[in-house]
């Protein structure tokens, strides 16, 4: 048995957008860089895929579900979606101890500075204007390789105490500037 090199093919990106054309495009863009891609059309489906069925139940229960079927290395999602917006999805992900370290990138067709700032303040790594291009996907490389190194060490769930502390952090940041 020889050494198997860790290739980019093992990196998994979750793409969330309610427009099927955009999903097809993003999927192709990401596959050009040899990433595995799962594309879903809503925030709810994204959370299901991430193994986070019921966020509210999760935060109050003592045991946390943190074994999603697939390890996701990056999430790229649209800001404007019906139902759960991209921003709401971002907040839920950042509140979850098992998911908060996954880099999140937001896409939007509108160039609204307050929207961009709000997303970046909430923890998004990048904000892309649509339509997304090859040069944008190229910017994702550092987030994916950095995350890969992290996840090999942080496979375990975080303990309860830490999750409570995290929740307090988020509570402090409840107010943010209005659009």
């Amino acid at each position: 048995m020889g050494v198997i090199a860790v290739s980019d093919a093992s990196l998994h990106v979750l793409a969330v957008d309610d427009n099927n054309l955009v999903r097809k495009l993003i999927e192709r863009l990401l596959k050009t860089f040899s990433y595995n891609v799962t594309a879903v059309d809503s925030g709810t489906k994204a959370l299901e895929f991430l193994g986070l069925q019921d966020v509210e139940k999760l935060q109050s229960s003592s045991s946390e579900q943190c074994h999603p079927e697939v390890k996701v290395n990056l999430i790229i999602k649209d800001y404007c979606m019906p139902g759960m917006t991209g921003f709401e999805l971002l907040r839920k992900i950042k509140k979850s101890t098992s998911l908060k370290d996954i880099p999140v990138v937001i896409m939007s067709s509108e160039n609204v500075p307050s929207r961009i700032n709000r997303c970046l303040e909430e923890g998004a790594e990048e904000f892309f204007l649509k339509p997304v291009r090859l040069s944008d996907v190229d910017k994702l490389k550092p987030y994916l390789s950095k995350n890969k190194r992290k996840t090999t060490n942080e496979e375990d769930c975080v303990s309860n105490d830490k999750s409570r502390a995290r929740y307090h952090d988020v509570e402090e940041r409840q107010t943010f500037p209005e659009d």
Partner: protein
Amino acid sequence: MDTVPQLQRQFVEYTTSLYREGYLDDQFSQLQKLQDESNPDFVVEVVSLFFEDSEKLLNNLTAALHQENIDYKQVDAHVHQFKGSSSSIGAQRVKNVCVVFRNYCEEKNLDGCMVCLQQAKNEYILVRNKLEALFNLEQQILQAGGSVPMMV
């Protein structure tokens, strides 16, 4: 029957005119960059999806604007989708109509919306015809044994 060089020249001229007249923008050439040996039909697939989606959206928009009590939020949601799709394939003129359309939705301006709906339909039909002609030219070149010129 045109020779391969003639067909190729036609293809280049036609493509150039589509960009010059604003039917297509740079996003279309981005799509072409994503087509390769392992995805040889990518552009046609994406454009076909666009045609399907557009027809549904235009029907939905027509229905939504003929309601007794128009739900402008719903109309806007459809236009937003249409804007997203058209900008994803580089259908610039369609996208530009959508931008104006959304403003009228916000103002709940029915007349404005109706004008935009008609413009959107017109621009969609135009770009659809142009793209179909373009794909047709590509097919002719391939069938004549030539290769489709790369538009940089």
